[in-house]
């Protein structure tokens, strides 16, 4: 493998990894606060692509506006899911909330299959994403170049929100100790709702960019990216925002590199991520950035 192809593959990996990072944040935020695996997160990601698609292709909005409307709609869907399905079960046994999450996920997927059909739709891409750039002798597709740049910008905004604003402080406080935070006069329900909005908006943005990268969208497109992003969150240390980003990049680059170095194993790309998950659970279950949690009595 020449240096140029390696660089190209690395860029592909980083580009894919940045999308996993966007998605992984949503999982890690919700898990950090509620201790719940939000199985529906991958489906919100799918909805992001569809909302943007409908806004652009049917309502004829300009591309950028369609995408923004799509992301806002995703945030609303995320909040609705929290309000309707998860809030009533906040004090229920863990397993009930998990089952509900699976139910919500399956509901969105099947509703999608019934309403828009299983046939993939072509996603409109702006010219920016279609250009080909020559970078240090390597031909880099516009998507590959812009997706990580936009993602990193979004991630920077997110880090600012989580670590530099009052809202972010409240989110971190709720994650540490929900009851104590409530006693300090924070409206915990609102914080959780906004966490879902934030995570879902990121998922929506990720969905749109995923659709630019692989411009065939279908109602089940969120299942695998969602699961891999959760794996990324585990690898990075679940509950840790920076860890989720790092985990996303690791999974993305590893996945692309495996396919690049061993082309015969391309069919098993997804299985490889499963291997990473099991490996981390065996060796370092708390993840790269995570701290070992003691069970509280």
């Amino acid at each position, binding site marked *: 493998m020449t240096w140029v192809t390696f660089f190209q593959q690395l860029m592909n990996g980083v580009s894919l990894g940045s999308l996993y990072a966007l998605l992984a944040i949503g999982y890690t935020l919700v898990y950090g606060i509620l201790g719940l695996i939000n199985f529906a997160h991958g489906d919100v990601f799918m909805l992001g692509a569809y909302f943007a698609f409908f806004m652009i292709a049917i309502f004829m909005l300009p591309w950028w506006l369609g995408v923004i409307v799509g992301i806002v709609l995703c945030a609303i869907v995320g909040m609705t899911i929290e309000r309707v399905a998860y809030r009533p079960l906040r004090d229920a*046994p863990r397993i009930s909330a998990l089952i509900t999450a699976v*139910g919500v996920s399956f*509901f969105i997927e*099947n509703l999608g299959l019934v309403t828009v059909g299983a046939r993939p739709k072509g996603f409109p891409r702006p010219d920016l994403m279609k250009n080909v750039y020559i970078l240090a002798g390597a031909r880099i597709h516009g998507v590959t170049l812009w997706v990580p740049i936009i993602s990193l910008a979004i991630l920077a905004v997110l880090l600012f929100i989580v670590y530099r604003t009052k809202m972010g402080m409240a989110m971190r406080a709720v994650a540490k100790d929900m009851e104590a935070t409530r006693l300090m006069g924070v409206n915990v329900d609102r914080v959780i709702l906004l966490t879902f909005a934030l995570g879902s908006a990121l998922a929506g943005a990720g969905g749109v960019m995923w659709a630019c990268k692989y411009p065939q969208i279908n109602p089940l497109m969120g299942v695998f990216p969602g699961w891999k992003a959760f794996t990324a969150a585990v690898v990075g240390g679940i509950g840790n925002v920076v860890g989720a980003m790092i985990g996303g990049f690791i999974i993305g680059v590893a996945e692309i590199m495996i396919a690049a170095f061993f082309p015969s194993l391309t069919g098993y790309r997804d299985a490889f*991520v499963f291997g990473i998950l099991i490996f981390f659970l065996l060796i370092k279950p708390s993840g790269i950035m995570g701290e070992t949690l003691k*069970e509280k009595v």
Partner: protein
Amino acid sequence: MDNKIKRDLVLTCLLFILLMLGTWLAQLYLNSYLVRILNTACIYVVVAVGYNLINGITGQFSLGPNGFMAMGGYTVAILMLPLAQKEQVYFIEPLIYPFSAFTFPSYLFGLALFLGGVVAALAALLIGFPTLRLRGDYLAIATFGFGEIILVFANNLIPLTNGALGIKGIPGYTNLWWTVGLAFLTVFLVKSLVNSSFGRAFKAIRENEVAAEAMGINLFRHKLLAFVISGFCAGVGGGLFVTLIGTVSPSLFTFTMTFNLLIIIVLGGLGSITGSTITAVIFAFLQEILREVEAPHTIGSWSLPGIPGMRMVVFSALLVVLMIFYRRGLFGNKELSWQLVIDWVSRSKNGKA
């Protein structure tokens, strides 16, 4: 005390004989459509009861049954497929060596089912080992991944699974004797297990892991045991399913299968074997009835187009609503026992007198 155990055993044997009599009558008089639904129902019982053991009784959330069923199903299919059929089916790439040279005669069907269960149980062991040491949620995400990965393998390991085309022409060894018999056996064995000291440990883990550990229960070993048994049941169920419909392909064991089982155990009551058994049968029939909803209808001059896939939308909405408003399901975590039946019968007698 001893008398009660003896009485229950006798009653159980009587029930078994009655069931077998019913099976015999069903074979004679029911049409093939109904027999098929009954077969499916019994297979659901086998898998759902096993699934409830890990999800409901031990309280560890697994999403793996579709993967385990696939493993059991493929194992049984490869073992039981006649040699001539093997040559015909594997035309892209021939079947790999040891399996291409032999096939099980029909009287070894039971052994094939057992091996299907063993293969699935081994897979459960491999997944359970790294995940069950940790807190519960990792099992959910690892088993969900496993269920999808096993389909990736089924699609790509062409010399073993024939890829997306799947395996056709599997002899239909599954009949009511097998399904009813195995459903009965599963319920009986799992119920005995739940009533034993193991079962108490499982329930203790479900209620409070820290307290259970403080009482000297080895969390990891008990969780692993429940998970492996559950995997075994799913493997056997997968084997039965494959020999019932005669084909196996990756699309047969998608996540929808796990989802159906989840509906069954939630509706029946997480932790109630009685509940899982009854709802498994109800579900098998309900699925057929709801097929009607999806078909196009004409009422007078109106014609409603059929909406394929509507069933799953209804089921998934149902699951969420059940979890929010009716979390205990039909039976909660209660069980029907002979003592209850006897009490009930004598009470209604006294009431009349």
